[in-house]
């Protein structure tokens, strides 16, 4: 659905923030972007959203160049959830905050009502529809930002480190929500530093390295890659443990649950 063709981008003449990045995002994928701070992750997603324009190369949406599109045009197709939800909250109630997007995109009053209610229901915020947004917890605000994006009916949802600064419970709720949206057919693109999240949820990972695409493959392939540490990443605990006990016939896995299951079975079998 979205394709980057040899995209270059620089903020200033000297520094090349994105260099020759080519990739395709397919409909229905759960994709993660990882990499060091300043490696170009956020810049790449900003280019996808048309917040920035490539200095060379092109970004295609369903085969059409996005060069003439504004971010408001892209909002029909892509929902962008920023790291800091406070930057967008400005209305008096949660309901009216979520309905801002559909209003801007010119939907009918009936559609606005329906899309807003649907987005609130999906994100578990229906009970807080009348609440003053500033009184919400950090996790609730993040879900409000997701609801605001979902109400515009985008096919692709981009989330920039949505779990940062959240407690474990809110984090789990958020990831369960993303899984639910993915199961409903939404394409999810997640920027994350958390390798556990990446291992558990992403189908495909792109690693950005000094503005270039360093890796594009599955999480399992990524954790075995020799450049993993050079990209500023580390394998999740389950992968490291399973690799160190591989000699005892334990299968290599990125996930903790199957590892614990297999280890308990092995230990039970021992006299």
């Amino acid at each position, binding site marked *: 659905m979205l394709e980057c063709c040899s995209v270059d981008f620089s903020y200033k003449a000297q520094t090349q923030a994105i260099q020759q990045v080519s990739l395709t995002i397919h409909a229905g994928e759960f994709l993660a972007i990882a990499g060091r701070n300043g490696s170009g992750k956020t810049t790449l997603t900003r280019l996808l959203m048309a917040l920035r324009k490539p200095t060379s190369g092109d970004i295609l949406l369903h085969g059409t160049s996005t060069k003439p599109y504004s971010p408001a045009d892209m909002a029909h197709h892509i929902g962008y959830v920023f790291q800091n939800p406070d930057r*967008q909250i400005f*209305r008096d109630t949660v309901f009216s905050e979520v309905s801002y997007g559909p209003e*801007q995109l010119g939907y009918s009053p009936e559609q606005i009502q329906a899309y807003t209610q649907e987005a609130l229901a999906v994100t578990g915020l229906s009970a807080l529809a009348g609440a003053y947004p500033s009184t919400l917890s950090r996790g609730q605000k993040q879900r409000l930002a997701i609801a*605001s994006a979902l109400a515009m009916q985008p096919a692709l949802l981009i989330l920039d480190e949505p779990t940062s600064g959240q407690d474990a419970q809110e984090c789990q709720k958020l990831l369960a929500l993303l899984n639910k949206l993915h199961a409903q057919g939404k394409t999810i693109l997640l920027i994350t530093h958390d390798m556990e999240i990446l291992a558990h949820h992403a189908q495909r990972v792109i690693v950005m390295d000094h503005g270039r695409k360093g890796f594009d493959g599955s999480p399992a392939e990524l954790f075995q890659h020799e450049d993993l540490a050079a990209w500023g990443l580390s394998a999740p605990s389950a992968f490291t443990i399973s690799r160190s006990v591989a000699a005892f016939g334990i299968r290599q896995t990125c996930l903790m649950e199957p590892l614990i299951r297999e280890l308990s079975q092995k230990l039970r079998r021992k006299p």
Partner: protein
Amino acid sequence: MMQKFAPLTKLLLTLFITLWSIMLQSMTALGLLIAGQLLLLVASQVRATVYKGIASLLLFAALLAGIQLALSGDTTLAITTALKMTAMTLVFFILLATTRMQDLSIALVSQCRVPHEYAFMLTAALRFIPDFLNESKAIQEAQACRGYRSQGNPLKRLTAYAAILKPLVLKAVSRSETMALSLELRGFANRRMSSFRSRVVLTARDYAAVMVMTGLSVFILNFC
């Protein structure tokens, strides 16, 4: 060049140039005053962004001259007003582009005897302008992703701008609260024992500059 002078000298320069701009009536003299200030900026090797600000100032001055001309029909008055405004404002660019905010604050407190709270308020407000602009840009981007467009007639644009203004004000208030708390926790109120790391004492260069400025003022007062 201007970085070598003490903040107090630059504050005095600001005061003198403001007075000269009021006193001078001739277009040539005002033009020379502006040219002199531009030369000071060039000699001080200020950042390119300062010149962008000056370009906006010149544009605003031209607009002001246009309005004045349309209202009064007096070309000389319109040009003189615009030149006076440019000369008065340009000196603040010199002051702010060549002085560290903390040095300015120290000079205001220790040499101009401005109460510390007021001096801090002034310098903090100036210090946070770039942050405020960056925050405004970030909010505009966040709202653009939700369909915000700055289009249509001025009234429509103004109404739409609420989507930017409200989060910006909320963030600024929240930030000021955090900052106030942080300052209190770091002993802001403890004025009796406080000291400054930097020194902003006047040197021979500063005294010479003050004498030149006073001499110029006497000259303008008598001959212009």
